[in-house]
Every structure is written in structure tokens, then in C-alpha cells.
């Protein structure tokens, strides 16, 4: 009964057009104040506890480091390197833009940010080289989703906080799947390029490749610092994020000199704005999750699922369908905080590794970002290309099938997600 009231209230409030954060918070407050026993003061304390969550503290730092890295220069240099490596293949520029997305994903924890940083440069470049705009936009829209799969990833931090899984393990687990998805997209591009005869660039000399690599090295070192620091036990993931933010600041201002000191306050304001928006959702989603747990909803669902005798593969199929549907209507952070506490105990009972479940959830969120009506990557791509949303949806569709095949592989081949963390931890 309470569950129904809670979810129906949430849906009604959301579709009235109020901020998602407030829809989550108000649905929880109304439900618990009319049907529950908690005092109002204790609910406010729940909201406040968001700030005391040490893992979540990594989010503002990763956002800040991403904001410094988005300052054009880093993406530009990575794109130059990618083009030098892959440009001479048929369809090489498109493959290089996938590689550039992979590289930029290693400094950014967000998918729309990756689409903007890489897409705003490469789409125009591909069109100039003779590709159609649909082709270029479709590739970038999908390749940009790598932003949350290749570490650092804000969505993974949120999952780690919701399930008390290790951030370091999740980050390591994302690397191999991220490379596989990148290669799958490149392979699809290559096949398509053979069919429609796409242009190729002159082969870059070895010296050019080396120069481009050296120039983009500073950006790529960020991931080495983060993963090396966490894995080597030098600092916690949260401290790693703060170090990354300071490092990104130094690279942008003093090494690449793309921005001056006087632009730093504006970067801070922008990053703080994104942080506030995201953390306001997180705080209210945690309140929502608290209502779920006090009503023992996860336990009830777990018992029901287990009594149905569902096997592992059946459960994972249901998980995927549920997440894909949810991903169409809600923002990833909210989905993870609400659904992870429900799915996690069942998965544990069925012997599914928490890290594997985390990667499955992340890949589903990626697909949610390229499917309407709430696909952030679609909106961003439309924004940078001046195409309509409908055009972008149509352009992204063929490449979306690659993401779906990848989701199936990730879901039923746990080895792919677990081999790297198992090897190192």
C-alpha cells in the first residue's frame, strides 16, 4: 500500500514539471508523514546526512576536475592524437572520434560533458571531410556514453555509496568493458565505412603520432593518478578526486594555459552549480530510499522474487528491462539511489557479484541517455549540431543496437567486468 502511494505520488509530481529532486523529496515526506511514524525533524536529518557521506564527497571534486578539463584544450589535443592514430583507415575520422571519447571519458565522469567536449569539435570536422551530419552525430551521441563507463564515473560513485561497494573496484571494473564498447563501435563504423565508402585521411607520420601523444599526455595522466593513487593505497577515492581537481586546475591554467587565473572563478561557479543540482537530487533520493527501507520494501521484494524461484539469468533480464524503462524517464543518479537498494540484496542472494551488478546498471544508464524522452545525450547532441531531437534520435538509432548487443554481453559475461578488479585486489 505504502509502496504504491509512494511511487504513484512520485510519478504524478514528476509529470507536473517540478524539479525531480523536489518530486522525490515531497513524495517521501507526504508518504511518511501520513502513513509512517518518523518525526519531521528526523527526516530533515536524513537530508543533512547526505553531506556527511564520505564517498559522495567525491562527486563535487570530480565535477570540478571535469570542468577544468572541459576547457577545450584537453579535448582538442586528445582528438588530434586520435586522428593521428586512426585517421588513415576508411571511416578513420569517425573511429578516431570514438577513441577521443574513450580518452576524454578517462578525465570526465559524465556522459553529456563528453559529448559536448568531443562532439563540438569532431562533428564539424567529419562533415568537412565528407561525412554526413547524421552519421557524425549518431556516432558521437553513442560514443559519449563511455563517459560514465570509463573511470572516473560519477554514476559509479553514486552506486558505490548506495551499496557500500568499493569505488576503486568499480573504477577498475569499468576499464575493460569501456575498451570493448569502444572497439565494438569502431568495428561497426569500419563495416559501415566499407559499405558506403567513407573517406580516409593521409597516414600520419610516426613523428606526428608521437608529438600528438606527448601533447595529450597531461590529460591522460589524470586517470593514472586517480587509479594509481586509489589502488596503491596512497589516498581514498574522495581524496583522489580532490587531487584530480587540483591537478586539472594546474594543467588547464599553467601547463596548457587555455584559461587564465581570472577565468577560474567562473569555472568554480559552473562546477558548483552542477554540484548543487546533482547533490539536491541525491539528498532527496536518499530520503526516498530511506522511506523504502523503513517500510521494508526491499526485503519484501527480495522474498517475493526468491520465492518465485527466479534463476540468475532470469533475474538479470528483469533487471535490464526495469532499468531500461526507468532510464527513459529519470535521471541516472536518482535511479541508482532508488533501485540499487532494492536490486542489491536480491543479486547477493542469487550470487551475483556487486561489482558486476554495478557495471550492468551503468551500461543501462548509458542506453537511457540515448533514448527519448529524457536522454541527455540526445539533447546535448541536438544542441551542438542544431539538428532537431527527432533527427538526432534517428541518427543515433543504428549505433544504439551496438549498445544493446554490448549490454547483453556485459550482463551474461561477468568475466568482462570482474577480471581486472579480481586480478588487482
Amino acid at each position, binding site marked *: 500500500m505504502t509502496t504504491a502511494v509512494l511511487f504513484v505520488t512520485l510519478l504524478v509530481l514528476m509529470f507536473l514539471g517540478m524539479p525531480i529532486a523536489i518530486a522525490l523529496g*515531497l513524495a517521501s515526506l507526504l508518504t511518511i508523514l501520513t502513513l509512517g511514524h518518523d518525526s519531521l525533524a528526523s527526516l530533515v536529518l536524513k537530508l543533512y546526512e547526505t553531506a556527511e557521506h564520505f564517498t559522495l564527497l567525491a562527486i563535487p571534486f570530480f565535477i*570540478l576536475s571535469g570542468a577544468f578539463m572541459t576547457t577545450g584544450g584537453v579535448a582538442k589535443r586528445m582528438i588530434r592524437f586520435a586522428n593521428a592514430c586512426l585517421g588513415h583507415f576508411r571511416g578513420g575520422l569517425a573511429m578516431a572520434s570514438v577513441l577521443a571519447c574513450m580518452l576524454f571519458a578517462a578525465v570526465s565522469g559524465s556522459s553529456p560533458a563528453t559529448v559536448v567536449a568531443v562532439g563540438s569539435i569532431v562533428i564539424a570536422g567529419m562533415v568537412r571531410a565528407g561525412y554526413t551530419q547524421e552519421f557524425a552525430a549518431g556516432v558521437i551521441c553513442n560514443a559519449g556514453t563511455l563517459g560514465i563507463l570509463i573511470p572516473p564515473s560519477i554514476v559509479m560513485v553514486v552506486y558505490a555509496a548506495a551499496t557500500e561497494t568499493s569505488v576503486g573496484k568499480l573504477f577498475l571494473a569499468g576499464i575493460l568493458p569501456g575498451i570493448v564498447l569502444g572497439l565494438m563501435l569502431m568495428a561497426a563504423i569500419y563495416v559501415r565505412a566499407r559499405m558506403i565508402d567513407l573517406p580516409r585521411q593521409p597516414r600520419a607520420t610516426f613523428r606526428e603520432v608521437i608529438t600528438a601523444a606527448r601533447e595529450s599526455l597531461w590529460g591522460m595522466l589524470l586517470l593514472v593518478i586517480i587509479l594509481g593513487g586509489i589502488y596503491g593505497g596512497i589516498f581514498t577515492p574522495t581524496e583522489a578526486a580532490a587531487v584530480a581537481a587540483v591537478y586539472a586546475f594546474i594543467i588547464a591554467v599553467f601547463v596548457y594555459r587555455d*584559461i587564465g587565473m581570472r577565468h577560474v572563478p567562473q569555472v568554480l561557479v559552473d562546477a558548483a*552549480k552542477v554540484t*548543487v543540482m546533482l547533490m*539536491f537530487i541525491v*539528498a532527496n533520493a536518499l530520503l526516498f530510499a530511506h522511506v523504502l527501507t523503513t517500510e521494508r520494501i526491499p526485503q519484501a521484494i527480495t522474498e517475493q522474487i526468491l520465492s518465485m524461484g527466479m534463476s540468475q539469468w532470469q533475474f538479470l533480464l528483469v533487471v535490464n528491462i526495469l532499468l531500461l524503462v526507468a532510464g527513459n524517464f529519470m535521471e541516472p543518479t536518482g535511479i541508482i539511489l532508488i533501485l540499487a537498494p532494492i536490486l542489491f540484496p536480491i543479486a547477493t542472494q542469487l550470487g551475483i557479484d556487486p561489482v558486476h551488478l554495478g557495471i550492468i546498471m551503468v551500461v543501462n544508464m548509458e542506453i537511457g541517455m540515448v533514448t527519448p524522452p529524457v536522454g541527455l545525450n540526445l539533447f546535448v547532441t541536438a544542441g551542438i549540431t542544431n539538428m532537431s531531437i527527432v533527427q538526432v534520435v534517428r541518427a543515433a538509432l543504428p549505433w544504439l543496437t551496438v549498445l544493446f548487443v554490448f549490454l547483453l554481453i556485459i550482463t551474461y559475461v561477468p568475466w568482462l567486468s570482474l577480471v581486472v578488479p579480481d586480478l588487482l585486489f
Partner: protein
Amino acid sequence: MRFAWLRRLEEWLIAALLAAMTLITFGQVVARYVFNYSFVWALELVTYLFAALIFLGMAYGVRVGAHIGVDVLVKALRPGAARVVGALAALLCVVYSGIGLVGSVTYIEKIREVGILAQDLPIEQWVPRTVLPIGFAILLLRFLQILFRIATGRQQGMQLSDEAAEALKLKADNDAAADGAARP
């Protein structure tokens, strides 16, 4: 514009909070490895700054339209109906902020009575937590303002921006910044 300085203050405050959190956490790492020393109070202070950023910043987010929402349904409505729905949404946001304000005032009064001390810093816990009632009070004002504007026909709906527009704006800002930097 009236209160322009107040608006700037909000902006500067959240930027300064984020910068302080980052520097203290970074400083903690440096202190531990370089000076072999760690500040016990650092984490607690960062927590307080983080809370201030979230709860003082939420109203700022409303003002600049940073909070994302689902507007597919509202966009499909006729202007008249959209205005009614917008007013209802704003009213419910007022309700949310009101509940938040009452709840946080009660909460602060309670812990002030008990007088619990902070763990590592020499202050009582209620002091940093007053960001809760302050934040909810500003949030309430912002939503009352929006409700008033919709009622008087000066605004159609909630006017949320989506994250896409935000990301693009961030990019535009940075391009402008990069252009600015390129010039001597």
C-alpha cells in the same frame, strides 16, 4: 537591478565553498605525505562546507534554473492549461520548502537544547547545521516568487532548464574563457 549584489554574493559563496572543500581535502593529502601530519578536524570541516554548499546552493539553483525536471507533459499542454499546471507545481514546491523549513527549525531547536558538541571542532553541532533552516527559508522565498509571477501572468511555468542546456552553456563559457585567454 535591485539586490544585484545579493545575487553575486550567492554565486561567490558557492564557488568559495567548493574551492575551500577541494583545497582542504587536497591539503590533507599533502600534509599526510609531505609533513607526515594530519589535521583531525579537516574532514569534519569539509563536511560542514559540503552541507553549506548543498543547502545554501539549492535556492540558487532555482534562481538560475539549474534543477532538472520532466517537462514533456507540460510542453504538450495548451498555454492556459500549462499555466494552471505550472502554478500547481510551484505551489507544491512551496509546500515542500515549508515542510523543510518547519522540520529544520524543530531539528535545530532540539539539538540546541541537548547541546551536542562537534567531534573535532570546538563548536556545538547546531551551529553549522543552521544552513538547513536558512537554506529552506531562501528556497521558500524563491518558490513564492515563482508562484507570484505565474499568478500575475509574468511567467508561464516553472521554467526549469535541462542539464543539456547547462552543459552547452558551460562549454560556451569555457570557449569564451579560452578566447579571452588567447588574447593578450
